[in-house]
């Protein structure tokens, strides 16, 4: 088996050296993208939109395979059971990393390798106008006196981890209020039931434009092009709190590097096409969402480290 594998690698390396060989050999069969969420949801739509052009770039059929359940567990065991030959891709989100960090996943973070990042939607720290908080200093002052009522999604999910990590690193006390979706968060922020929330740009934009919401900071390394006046948390002196609703493609780590490189190149090309760009624009993002293998892989690992740490603090890790 190992011999066969190394023989195969040797053969493909030879083919690569011979010139165009590999490009013709891979992909040799339809490519599947395994997702963990329902049809019509964000992850599903992102994968499908990417595949519209990717089919042409890959020169083969490509389809979305839904393996729902267990916070990505079902998808991860499916992918780990397939040959690591670059024909089985997995669309991952922070949910998968959380499942891994909680020790519920069949694979560990070291067993996956980033290929491309397809969306990167940073969490924005937003306060409501009715809370009386207008600046980051106000928030710090208020948060030292009494916990800030902070809305987010599912406890133990990425919003929760982001809020707690922020609280730990900034000293702002937080009472985390979980809601079952972005819509509920926005309406409760609007109605004054909560004072602050971690929102995506698409969720916050209406409130920001109407003046009901004030964006205080972005949980990313760079400012958002749509909100040029909103600083990053690092600029405000709170380092390493970078969280986003991020989606990207990974393969199993033992997939040959040349195939990962080929997939990276073709998927990047597909996502730089107008079809995908229009989709990004439609959900309030831009081209900076798209990232190559190196950047994406690094982000997966730094996010995982933060998640692992915070879940431990919350007592949600085994």
């Amino acid at each position, binding site marked *: 088996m190992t011999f066969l594998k190394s023989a195969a690698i040797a053969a493909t390396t030879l083919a690569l050296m011979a010139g165009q060989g590999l490009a013709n050999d891979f992909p040799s069969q339809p490519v599947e993208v395994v997702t963990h969420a*329902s*049809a*019509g949801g964000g992850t599903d739509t992102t994968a499908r939109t990417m595949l519209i052009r990717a089919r042409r770039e890959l020169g083969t059929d490509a389809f979305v395979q*839904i393996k*729902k*359940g*267990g*916070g990505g*567990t*079902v998808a991860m065991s499916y992918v780990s059971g397939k040959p690591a030959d670059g024909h089985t891709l997995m669309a991952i989100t922070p949910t998968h990393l959380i499942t891994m960090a909680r020790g*519920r996943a069949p694979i560990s973070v070291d067993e996956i390798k980033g290929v491309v990042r397809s969306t990167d939607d940073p969490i924005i720290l937003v306060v409501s106008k009715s809370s009386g908080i207008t600046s980051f200093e106000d928030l710090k002052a208020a948060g030292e006196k009494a916990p800030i*009522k902070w809305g987010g999604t*599912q*406890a*133990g*999910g990425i919003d*929760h981890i982001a809020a707690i990590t922020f609280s730990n690193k900034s000293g702002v006390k937080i*009472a*985390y*209020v*979980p*809601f*079952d*979706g972005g*819509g*509920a968060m926005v*309406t*409760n922020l609007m*109605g004054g*039931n*909560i004072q602050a929330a971690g929102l995506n740009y698409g969720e916050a934009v209406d409130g920001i434009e109407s003046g009901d919401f004030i964006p205080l900071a972005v949980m990313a390394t760079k400012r958002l092009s749509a909100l040029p006046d909103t600083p990053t948390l690092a600029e405000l002196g709170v380092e390493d709190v970078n969280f986003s609703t991020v989606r990207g493609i990974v393969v199993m780590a033992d997939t040959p590097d040349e195939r990962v490189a080929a997939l990276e190149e073709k998927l990047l090309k597909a996502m730089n096409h107008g079809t995908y760009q229009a989709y990004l624009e439609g959900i309030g993002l831009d081209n900076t969402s798209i990232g190559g293998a190196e950047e994406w892989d690094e982000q997966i690992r730094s996010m995982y480290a933060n998640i692992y740490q915070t879940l431990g603090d*919350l007592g*949600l890790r085994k």
Partner: protein
Amino acid sequence: MEMLVGGLLEILQPQTLLLICAGTLVGVLVGALPGLSSSMAVALLLPFTIYLDPIPAIAMLAALYCAGTFGGSITAILINAPGAPPAAATAFDGYPLAKNGQAGRALGMAAASSVAGGVFSLFVLIFAAPFLATIAYRFGPPEYFALTVFGLSMLASISGKSAIKNLIGGAFGVLIATVGVDLTTGVERFTFGVPELYEGISFIPVLIGLFAMAELLDQAGQKDRPLERFAMSALKLPTVDDFKRVWKTILRSSGIGTFVGILPAEGSTVAAMIGYNEAKRWSKNKENFGKGELEGVAGPEAANNAATGGAMVPTLALGIPGSATAAVILGGLQIHGLRPGPYLFENQPNLLYAIFFAMLLANFVFLAFGLVGARYFSRISLIPRQFLWPAVFCLCVVGAFGVGQSLNDVYIMLIAGFIGYFLNRAGFSPAPIIMGLVLGHLVENSLAQSMILFDQDAWKFFTRPIAVFFFILAVVSIFSTPIGRLIKSRKREEADRLAHGNE
């Protein structure tokens, strides 16, 4: 006004019109078929609507809901086998009328009063829902908690069966809702290490199992019963004289039906029973009831159709289902990414009007179907079971699989079906379980959220007037049932005494 036109334009798409007509036709058919109910048909159709846009999908389901309630009256009158529970009261006088050779007149009255009740309630919907939605802007977790408690308090009387069994069923539904990772703590509950259960038990498979699969199992165990069918040449719309006789009843029943429909969890069946009782109470021909009284047809039929529009009010405005079928439609809205509640009108201004027009249209389409085809619809009850139920089984499996494309959902559907079968035999009805499942998440999460907002001080609920209002309603609804029963039994005793005194 702009939104009104917008909603109308949404409906006037050829595809949407076709879907509404299809929904109406299916509704009349399943309504007419004993055993097949509109909630079951909506549950079975729901997975197939995923591929449609939200408005046509919901329009079709809403049309089906309206028409299903009318369809039940066809078989109730012609063969004394109510096609659906809401039509049970219609059979009391409809069947005797048919026996007297007035089947056409009875059906005509049923159709006309159904339309009248339906249209009346839709106008209430169009005015009440946005009004509710505007005050509902002030609905945060504490208000939702109180509202949901009120909704659950209505469970006791949701179906005609035992109140205590309904409450047990509701609690069972809430229990099912707790499976999975808890929203507010992130802790896994009742997952038994099965990854497929982390995200909870989905609503649709349970629904299909409890409503369709359980009924299928029940029907499989029954012997064929030869039915006596009355010949009917044509459906006769009520004459002016007939109208003069029943217009008060229709109006009263429309009001009763709409009101009962608006109450969370109270559906068409209860509305029809009350409508019938009130028709009898105020009638000049009391002694004729049960022997073929036209008012006895108009009363329940106007009420049960009025309840459909009424039930959509809390469903759309607050996200609290007004009836079992409305609970299924609520699930449909959620599948289409629409979050029912005060913000629905903000985000989807055309939707309310589109649903309104779809249901309005359905009312007239089923009237047309009734005029032309009542004779043929009644034949549906002659379809041999051995063909009908296997087809229903296929739909159950496909429907359960379709939503999540997961075989696990099929297993859940089958398990729910078997549980539902035995629960039915033990005298439990599926509606409270579904209601518990729908409201379970909401009641628990809104309480947990409220407690965080109130810094764990439950007394702060009393600082929220809307919450207090619903808590009071809940207390009233819990105690009114036993008190009502007490009064009834007192009256009965009194009546017995009087009767004995006359001897």
